């Protein structure tokens, strides 16, 4: 307890965030080993990890860098497709853990490269303009991936934007990306453990970046770009740093997502997915990493939990989103929450507990 108290405030807060993730993992593993976990919940564990990583990485762009990005699904799809192509060609012959790790790394690096390429022109724009360009990027990537035909035989890659027959492959050829149908027939490799490790890595990278010198520079750009520039901060460099990190992590999440299913199509990565992740970020609190983790997990599970309501499912989901938004962000409600909390803590059991603790300490 003493160590916890003398710790820096940010370190303690970060540890709590890691703790939540680890606790979640342990509880799920415990339930699963006891056979208490439903199929439905088991199937959702990996997607939860994916969306948590996506939300945390988007929060880096939206909350910490302060730029609205609507093309996060684009980076996810670049990662997903490059990772999945590697997995189809070489990864499946590697030991599964190594194959998954290398696929993820390739997916992440490819998404990072795209982040860099997009970032150079885009980060010169501000506000709405940046949002629109990232939105366009996501859509362009989706449409390109929809039109790609990629085959693999003993001579190497065959590539076409027309149709599968114009690949001209040899006898042993195998179509990997089949246009709009995408990739199918993958063996699955993602596991909950891999997902949780990726979440922890993401948290480690993002939280440490935020608390570092670079992170403070990034936040200073968010708060006042002119002042930051005047103090000698290289705005482009730090903006790119945040943007690329965000893209890299989204790419890794994309690979986790892709290898959790046996088929992958570009259609999934449209602006709806980008907006969905943005909703997680906004509801969890912009700039609040722990909020993103919790919001992504809860909001992903929610529509599945509401399946019993049949036709009213999506209606109720929308209502819950609105209520959560008001509860979390509306100034009046926040003030009211604080009031209630203070009242509770002044007279409530928690305060009593604290007093008792103090007394016992004094006696000791």
């Amino acid at each position, binding site marked *: 307890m003493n160590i916890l108290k003398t710790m820096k405030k940010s370190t303690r807060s970060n540890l709590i965030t890691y703790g939540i993730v680890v606790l979640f993992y342990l509880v799920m593993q415990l339930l699963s080993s006891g056979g208490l976990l439903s199929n439905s919940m088991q199937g959702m564990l990996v997607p939860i990890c994916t969306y948590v990583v996506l939300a945390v990485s988007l929060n880096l762009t939206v909350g910490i860098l302060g730029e609205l990005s609507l093309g996060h699904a684009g980076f996810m799809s670049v990662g997903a497709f490059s990772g999945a192509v590697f997995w189809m060609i070489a990864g499946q012959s590697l030991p599964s853990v190594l194959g998954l790790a290398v696929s993820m790394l390739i997916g992440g690096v490819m998404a990072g490269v795209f982040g860099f390429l997009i970032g150079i022109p885009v980060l010169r724009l501000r506000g709405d303009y940046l949002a629109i360009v990232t939105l366009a990027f996501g859509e362009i990537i989706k449409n390109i991936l929809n039109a790609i035909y990629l085959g693999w035989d003993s001579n190497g890659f065959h590539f076409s934007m027309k149709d599968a027959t114009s690949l001209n492959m040899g006898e042993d050829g195998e179509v990997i990306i089949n246009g709009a149908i995408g990739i*199918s027939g993958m063996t699955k490799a993602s596991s909950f453990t891999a997902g949780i490790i990726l979440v922890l890595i993401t948290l480690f990278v993002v939280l440490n970046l935020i608390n570092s010198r670079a992170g403070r520079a990034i936040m200073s750009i968010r708060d006042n770009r002119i002042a930051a520039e005047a103090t000698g901060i290289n705005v482009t460099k730090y903006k790119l740093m945040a943007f690329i990190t965000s893209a890299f992590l989204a790419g890794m999440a994309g690979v986790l997502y892709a290898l959790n299913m046996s088929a992958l199509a570009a259609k999934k990565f449209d602006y709806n997915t980008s907006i969905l992740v943005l909703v997680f970020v906004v509801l969890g609190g912009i700039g609040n990493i722990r909020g993103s983790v919790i919001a992504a997990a809860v909001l992903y599970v929610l529509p599945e939990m509401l399946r019993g309501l049949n036709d009213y499912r999506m209606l109720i989901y929308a209502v819950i989103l609105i209520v959560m938004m008001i509860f979390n962000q509306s100034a009046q409600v926040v003030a009211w929450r604080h009031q209630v909390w203070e009242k509770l803590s002044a007279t409530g059991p928690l305060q009593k507990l604290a007093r008792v603790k103090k007394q016992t300490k004094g006696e000791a």
Partner: protein
Amino acid sequence: MKKAMSLVLAAAMAFSFAACGGASGTSGATSTASGAASTTGTASGAAIKIGGIGPLTGGAAIYGNAVKNGAELAVEEINAQGGLQFVLNFQDDENDPEKSLNAYNNLKDWGMQALLGTVTTQPCLTVAPETAADNMFLLTPSASAVDVIKEDNAFQVCFTDPNQGVASADYIADNGLATKIAVIYDSSDAYSSGIHDKFKEEAAKKGLEIVADEAFTADNKTDFSVQVQKAKSSGAELVFLPIYYSEANLIIQEMNKQGCTATVFGCDGLDGLLTIEGADTSLFEGVMLLTPFAADAQDEKTQNFVSKYQEKFGETPNQFAADAYDGVYTILAACEQGGVTADMDASAICDALKTAMTQITVDGLTGEGMKWEATGEVNKAPRAVKIQNGAYTAM
């Protein structure tokens, strides 16, 4: 204070997860365990649990709802007949592979013993390998890609995309409809591009000349003036549209505007043209399509189905509803053939149905004497219809 609160919240979250996971998990476990013990106890215990997955919301909802309605109708009829009893649980997947997988897991928790689905192709490509791993019987009414039935537990009621492409080219060539053909298709759609690729191959074999090959994508499907212009200037006698009816409607309108008089030929996706509200159906005169089902066919079975469907759901059934209706009856026939009873588990049922499927012959709405190969492909004759006087006429 804030920290304490977040800790409490975190704990609450973890517990709520545990609670939901635990609760549904145990209920799933008890239902499967007691399923065998108390089959005679409850009505639902004695019925074979059929799961359905399809888009009930979103852009493809029209297909999912049609399948759901068609299947419901068939299940009601079967249960009224006595004999084997079915219970249907249809879940929404929003035409999203990821949601489809969630829906599948959800149905597994419910204790599903056979799956009628999924309705659309893309989700089916994701769900089918899962069913193979679980050894769960899968019969899709309308997912038409070849890869869907790659595993031996998966069967189709509809034609595969390549079959439709080949059948279309054969039909056009054998009946001498045209030699110069323009194709307009949706390159971002698996169904459309699947038919297109095979059609092109077969057309070359049959000596048909494709004079224009124009694509559009799902994001770009409101203005077809360029594609129609190209088709017109290429001198095509026939425009082949392996697409869905809403886009076909726009293309036909554009053709009319530009004075393009080529014949229009399509696949089962064009079924629905006549039901578009507010459309000028006189433009559709002479449109030909290959469809397994026409709502105003004169045979007793179809008329019976259509009148019942209209009475119950207040709309004219389309081909998807008919596919689903046939699908449920196919499962019934296979269950009877394979001696399946409600107290068998999903894996045993799957094994029995796999062999039974290749032995049965079903006379359905979408084809007489439907038979299945072990590959999962259906064998039935394609039917072509022509729109005349605002109604389908057999050709």
